[in-house]
């Protein structure tokens, strides 16, 4: 009887989890499994009803094409190129805001959060206008300095510069906020003791701040890496991957391939490969940065 009662209680407790389990099954696991399945078929807009199983053919095509390697390289440029400035700027700003005698910290902080609170989608459309050759405010400012206008989004190098600067503007507040809250978690006594022992500012930074911030930096970097890798809107809105596919990344290409050209199977294969690469990198970084120890 006791056993039955316990079973009954566990069953009722599981009922509470039913919604989330249903969501996980139907909106996550099933779609992912389906994506894996159609990446092995010739299912696309042109074979919508009569598709056949083609095995690894799509993957073979994909891995032997130069497009895939260009996209992979671009994704890495985009992710690493964005992440390093974002973490650096976020960290330096957090250090500045964390000084004990700074005035108006809350005002600065509120101003900093504005780009984060405003929807990225709208900001990006506005940024698209700002990089415009003829009317864009960036070229206007350059004009004031006597620099001729640049056609930002039509050349690969300047397009990358514009993309990364825009992304930096969009995301540094988040990094500043996270770093600031973990900087404020460092006990002030540590610094006081160090000063008594004759430490200068650099020593304090090198031997107290940096070691204590190590896990926060690692955690934020891994999260930022995963987020930037899959960050769809900046590239989709600013360059659309152009010129050609020279600034295209895996996720944007996947989306275009599926919803602009109807090659569902190729898109599915791309998303599977992208997810596998990302998962491997994230796991490696989690191991190296020993972040999992922090979470559990």
């Amino acid at each position, binding site marked *: 009887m006791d056993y039955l009662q316990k079973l009954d209680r566990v069953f009722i407790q599981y009922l509470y989890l039913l919604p989330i389990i249903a*969501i996980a099954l139907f909106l996550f696991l099933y779609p992912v499994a389906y994506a894996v399945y159609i990446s092995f078929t010739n299912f696309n807009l042109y074979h919508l009803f009569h598709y056949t199983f083609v095995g690894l053919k799509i993957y073979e095509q994909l891995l032997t094409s130069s497009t895939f390697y260009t996209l992979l390289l671009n994704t890495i440029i985009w992710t690493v190129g964005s992440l390093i400035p974002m973490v650096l700027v976020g960290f330096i700003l957090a250090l500045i805001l964390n000084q004990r005698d700074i005035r108006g910290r809350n005002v600065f902080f509120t101003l900093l959060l504005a780009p984060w609170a405003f929807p990225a*989608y709208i900001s990006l459309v506005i940024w*698209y206008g700002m990089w415009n050759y003829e009317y864009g405010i960036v070229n206007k400012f350059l004009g004031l300095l006597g620099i001729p206008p640049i056609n930002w989004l039509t050349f690969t190098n300047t397009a990358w510069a514009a993309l990364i600067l825009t992304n930096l503007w969009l995301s540094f507040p*988040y990094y500043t906020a996270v770093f600031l809250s973990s900087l404020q978690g460092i006990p002030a006594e540590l610094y006081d003791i160090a000063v008594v022992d004759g430490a200068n500012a650099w020593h304090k930074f090198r031997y107290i701040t940096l070691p204590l911030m190590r896990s926060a930096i690692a955690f934020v970097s891994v999260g930022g890496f995963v987020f930037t890798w899959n960050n769809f809107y900046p590239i989709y809105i600013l360059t659309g991957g152009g010129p050609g596919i020279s600034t295209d990344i895996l996720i944007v290409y996947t989306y275009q391939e599926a919803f602009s050209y109807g090659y569902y199977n190729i898109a599915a294969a791309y998303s599977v490969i992208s997810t596998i690469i990302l998962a491997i990198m994230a796991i490696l970084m989690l191991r190296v940065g020993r972040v999992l120890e922090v979470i559990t």
Partner: protein
Amino acid sequence: MNPIPTLASVTLRSLLPENTTLEAYYYILFKEPFLLWLRNSLILAAGTVAITAIVAFITGAALSRFNIPGKTTLMVTIYVMTFFPFAATALPLYLMFASLGMLRHTLTTYVGLILAYSGGTSIFSSYLVKVFLDRIPRDYEEAALIDGLTRFGAFFRILLPMAMPIIAFVALLAFMGAYTDYALANAFIMKGSMWTLTLGMYYLAFVNRATLYNVLAAFSVLMGIPIFAIFIAFQKYLVQIYAMGGVKA
């Protein structure tokens, strides 16, 4: 509020507004179907917020308070799922809803979109709610249980009022997710009358080349109003979340 600048006179003067006018606002509100797009966006956002808040609260409360066998496995699965890229699920979800014939009618398209958005937000949100509830002592509910309240009643009558800050935060995230989404809406929506603000903005900015830049600026100001309204409405709770410092989006 600025008439269109030209490259002809590049001076500091030209960077400042010359004659302010509300013409752009008039144009966007009455010449373009802005209000229709706004209504569509708000319907989708409201549905997503409702589902996300309810599912996240129930799941978060259960994960925090029950000792269910297999809980750790479920927690890890939920955590890993928050890492999935949306592109890995957007396409299959689209195909799934399309094959169910749901994308042919307005109502079912909205249901599909709301479900797709809620799927993305409620998993991450459940995790946030769970972390938040772990910090609230169990004494209150246990006292209520002794007084004869059911488990379910204790969750909603005792725990829910105390969880309001995180519910507000989760609601804000869900609102932002649905309100500013372009990728899924673009894939799912077939008819112009179902367009959302993001689709309208994309059309004005990239397809209709004749759109003036000041109209776009007016558009983004108007589109930002609901978000700031929600920020202000939830300010009391959001400040508490920030003060706790534990939850980040």
